[in-house]
């Protein structure tokens, strides 16, 4: 089955972490991360509706480092593009914001499926 666009995650990295810290700790960590990611989608939608490009850029910057460290490569990449648009191409912010939010939703679904987590 083709992977949904924006759902690339580093399964090997997450699996290595799971083996090192144990299933229970990994599950707690991943559940918290997914809850945070869902909240970030809401935050980004709200900021997008308000047209607050400065805060969107800051949020995208934070998300790039956080999502990438959790192994969500597509989300990190989409956040980087959104951050760049916030400073260099404000006219593209809305489109890149939609792409990021779709990428976050797809990545949540992929992590849930890959590691048997709660949606």
């Amino acid at each position: 089955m083709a992977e949904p666009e924006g759902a690339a995650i580093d399964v090997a990295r997450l699996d290595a972490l799971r083996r090192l810290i144990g299933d229970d700790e990994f599950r707690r960590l991943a559940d918290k991360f997914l809850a945070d990611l869902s909240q970030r989608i809401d935050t980004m939608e709200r900021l997008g509706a308000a047209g607050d490009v400065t805060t969107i850029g800051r949020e995208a910057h934070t998300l790039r480092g956080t999502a990438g460290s959790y192994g969500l490569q597509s989300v990190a990449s989409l956040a980087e593009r959104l951050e760049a648009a916030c400073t260099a191409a404000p006219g593209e912010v809305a489109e890149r914001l939609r792409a990021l939010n779709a990428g976050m939703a797809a990545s949540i679904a992929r992590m849930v499926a890959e590691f048997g987590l709660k949606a």
Partner: protein
Amino acid sequence: MSPSEPSSSLSRLLYVDDDPTLTLLTRISLERVGGFTVRTCASGTEALSVVEAFAPDLILLDVMMPVMDGPATLRALRELPSLDLVPVVFMTAKVQDAEMARYRELGAADVIGKPYDPVKLPELVRAIWERSRG
């Protein structure tokens, strides 16, 4: 050991970042994978209030934080006599050459780019610690 004498081993880390989700991952990585004792802080101000009592061997400092960013926190840390020899490592998504040079000029021992691999982070921190003692 005098207050300004550097530690001979790496065991206590202070990690400062305003993103609780990344802080959780980093703490688990450093504690569970690396075996370090870790104190986390959500701001530069909080770090300054606990750093002397915690007495870290090394400090990991996010660059982009509200109110007091990483460079401002580093400057304030260097004002504390007991902290002047403790290596400070910046953690940032901005790792272009010009920024890296600026961070080192500010007195950072090194810079860790975000995102980072939580499985490899403890090893990276140990390597920076070893270099900082050379």
